[in-house]
């Protein structure tokens, strides 16, 4: 019962925020209401690849301290950089979606797309993300139509992340 009141509350909250800036608005909708749950094949099929855009796919979980430390870099990037889109792939346990993931995303005002990856056969899909990844999170994939690079560790500073993204934006 309480859960439904909360969900209704969230819907109202989002509706009442509709007047905010257009880009923000779309992202806010994404954030508070819809965290889709995908298996790896679905995730792979949904990953966009628009020309002239650089995508950052970050694998994280709400309990993972280094992941949470670097999250603000990704949200800042998503907000401030043109032609950059951040996709946060949560590896929280699926039964924690309601109790942890949704409240976390809400509380931290995450403005990027969040997807819950529910695919326990991780031995099958980890190598598809990157051959050399052994499955430790955090891990981040940068890609655009010209380039693709995998970072199997945390970014220590925003600057470090920004520099990597700039390289991608400038790739010919």
């Amino acid at each position, binding site marked *: 019962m309480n859960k439904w009141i909360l969900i209704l509350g969230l819907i109202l909250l989002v509706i009442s925020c509709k007047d905010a800036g257009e880009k923000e608005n779309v992202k806010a909708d994404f954030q508070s209401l819809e965290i889709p749950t995908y298996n790896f094949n679905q995730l792979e099929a949904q990953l966009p690849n628009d020309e002239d855009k650089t995508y950052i796919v970050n694998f994280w*979980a709400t*309990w*993972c*301290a*280094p992941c949470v430390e670097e999250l603000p870099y990704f949200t800042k990037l998503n907000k401030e950089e043109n032609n950059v889109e951040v996709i946060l792939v949560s*590896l*929280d*346990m*699926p039964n*924690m979606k309601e109790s942890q993931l949704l409240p976390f995303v809400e509380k931290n005002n995450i403005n990027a797309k969040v997807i819950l990856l*529910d695919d*326990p*056969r*991780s*031995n*099958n899909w*980890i*190598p598809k993300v990157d051959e050399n*990844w*052994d*499955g*430790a*999170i*955090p891990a981040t994939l940068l890609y655009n139509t010209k380039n693709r690079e995998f970072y199997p*560790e*945390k970014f220590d500073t925003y600057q470090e992340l920004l520099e990597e993204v700039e390289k991608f934006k400038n790739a010919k």
Partner: protein
Amino acid sequence: MRTFKILTVSAAIIAASAFAVNNVVNSEESSNSSENGYHIGDTAANFKLKNIDGKMVSLSDFDEAKGFIVVFTTNHCPYAKAYENRIVALDKKYKPKGYPVIAINPNDPNKNEQDSFENMQLRAKQKGFTFPYLLDEGQKIYPVYGATKTPHVYLLQKERKGNIVKYIGAIDDNYQDPNDVKETFLENAIQELLAGKEVSVKTTKAIGCSIK
């Protein structure tokens, strides 16, 4: 200018290959140390670490063992927690057959209170651990093994020249649900060793919490 560039590049290549030769020599001298940790067939280093009962535990204490299931695991990580019961079951099943579990917490307790020695004692009691649960004090052992996350398994077989790494990776193919496991990677490897066969699947991958 171009020639200079080529010269520089060649110099770099020579330097790099010299470095590579050095590496080979080193790894022949001692297969115990590699920057990226152990590979299949390497000899695993012995260690002496403090168990939750306060006593020091070393691989050389286990005269009867045919090998070891070395599991890097920890208290705080939900992926590790999801495997605790499965690790207890493995120890109960394979300790009598010569492959006991040795669990090691590789995390720095100063970074997360949940991973402290006291909390290791508590967790082991709550979950009824039947095996040593050691603290990698000073974080010296996990880098030698090359563990990067919890849980992370190294299956060792005792041979004349030492404890040889036979399998590295995941316990099974479902980190979420023990009732929906299709492939028991680690158990398959132990069964193969017990049957005197070569391990067929030597490495696997699984999601884990990075070691801090």
